């Protein structure tokens, strides 16, 4: 992350001791994942009896995906995730720009109100939000999965902070050339903010893909279940088929792990950024 500052720092611990401790810590983190993979290719009779599978049963993955409509769960999760990520990028950045750059009445009170909602646990909003969605006849639709989460305060705060650091002169040059606010925003501000937008996108993606309680409430049938809800239901039905369950679990986790590996820098920068305020 910051190799330049790290290079000047003296080592606190002996290198060998640090590696030993870090490897021990890493083991507790990574062993469950290795265990999940090994179990997913075992015969059922070896699930609890062998550490290493005697034969590799890759077809477990096919069986797991046939035992429940995992393709459908996957598709639903992809649609929901794309919707939420795009929503956050567009709605959050527009609002953030207004808070960072434009002058309008009651700007600070509105911003503080939004900030205050960040302290409120989702349990407080979820009952009324759920009955609202029921009244709109949105249960078991993509509307219910996406629309209520199209914008979020975290993204607005994150982007507002970044937009404020862009020198005003850059925008003024564009405005003198006759660009309207929206065009200035799209053609000047957005390209300058790609790193912050990437951070927001990866956070939104992780949130959407892993979200549980809201999709659990607003979906009833297999048709509209997301991967997390489908997986939890699968666990209820096939509680003892640990090899299939592990195969399903691993495939559910792959998208976030891949996205993490690609966007690692953006994500870690974002996490580090949340702490700076604290």
């Amino acid at each position, binding site marked *: 992350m*910051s*190799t330049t*500052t*790290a*290079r*000047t*720092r*003296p*080592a*606190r*611990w002996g290198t060998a001791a640090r*590696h030993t401790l*870090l490897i021990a*810590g*890493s083991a*507790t983190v990574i062993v469950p*994942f290795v*265990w999940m993979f090994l*179990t997913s290719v075992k015969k059922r009779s070896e699930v609890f009896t062998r550490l290493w599978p005697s034969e590799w049963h890759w077809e477990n993955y096919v069986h797991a995906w046939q035992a429940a409509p995992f393709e459908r769960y996957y598709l639903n999760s992809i649609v929901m995730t794309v919707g939420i990520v795009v929503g956050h990028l*567009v709605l959050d950045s527009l*609002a953030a*720009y*207004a808070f960072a750059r*434009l*002058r*309008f*009445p009651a*700007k600070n009170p509105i911003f503080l109100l939004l900030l205050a*909602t960040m302290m*409120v*646990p*989702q*349990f*407080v*909003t979820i*009952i*009324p*939000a*759920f009955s*609202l969605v029921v009244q709109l006849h949105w249960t078991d639709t993509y509307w219910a999965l996406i*629309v*209520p989460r199209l*914008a979020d305060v975290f993204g*607005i705060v994150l982007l507002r902070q970044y937009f404020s650091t862009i020198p005003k002169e850059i925008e003024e040059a564009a405005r003198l050339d006759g660009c309207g606010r*929206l065009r200035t925003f799209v053609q000047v501000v957005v390209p300058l903010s790609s790193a912050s937008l990437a951070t927001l996108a990866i956070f939104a993606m992780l949130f959407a893909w*892993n979200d*549980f*309680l809201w999709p659990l*409430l607003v979906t009833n049938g297999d048709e509209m279940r997301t991967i*997390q809800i489908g*997986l939890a239901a699968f*666990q209820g039905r096939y509680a003892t088929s640990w090899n299939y*369950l592990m195969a399903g679990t691993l495939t559910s986790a792959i998208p*976030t792990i891949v996205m993490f590996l690609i966007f690692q820098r953006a*994500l*870690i920068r974002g996490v*580090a950024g*949340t*702490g700076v305020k*604290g």
Partner: protein
Amino acid sequence: MVSTTAPTVGRSVQEPVRRSVRDRYSRREVLTAVGFLIPALVILGTFVIYPIASGGFLSLTSWNGFGTAQKFVGLANYTRMFADHEFWNSLLVTAVYALGVSVLSVASGLVIALLLDAPLRGLSIYRGIYFLPVVTSSVAAAIVWRYMLDPSGVVNRLLTGVGLPTVDWLNQRWTALAALTLLTVWKNLGFNAILYLTALQALPVSLTEAAQLDGASLWQRTRWMTIPLLRPMTFFVVVQALITAFQSFDLVYVLTGGGPTGGTEVLGMLMYRYAFKLGEFGYGAAIAFATLALMLGVTLVQWKATGSGESDLA
């Protein structure tokens, strides 16, 4: 909702000092701002801000979630809550869980960050590994832990391997809560380590170097300089841990379902059971508001206790 309420009367020459709303804001700019804000504010207003107000009202009714009959019952849901042994059980479970998660999050995050804070081969690999559980869904993480904690699972096999008796982790009250606590800490370890690492790298090197020249040992420097300097971040990590514990649902739902016999029924699970399993929306909303009040209260106490999050030495 944001548009100006500028008086339609023209500017009066007699009062040049009191400037009207119309003077201070350009009409064009305000309209642009409204356009930029409307999409996000409509969504947040409808699905976050209105529900907070509506939930507050709901907690004063005995609504079952169906029909329009929201019978106003005053504070009956709250008085019922204080007499409900299930609520007190849930409060105790949440308190023990929150305490455990806070203490262990600070300890584990700090140790890993101290180990990572200096040049080291493979640093980014370690960082990536510790972050793996953070990006994994709670459902997936809890399923794997259930598998490992099964009576004939790998944890018990390790125990019998060293001659210890096996434990039915998830079917006993306190071991189930301990498992849930450890799972939560395990899942957020990478997050807390990165937070501490960021804070560590922002500390001035000169201070600890001076102490080192004065003969302070590594332990003395860490204990009496680094840790006190990290106090604002510790406050932040503890608040994050408290929020995690008070908001916990997914991990509990999959790992134990709140059992055995309420042994891991945190406030979120209790709210879910009453509102969505038993259809008592009013009572569920009251539990949700009690959770909010507790969260704010504990954060405030913690804020006072750590001296507004200021560090001692800075």
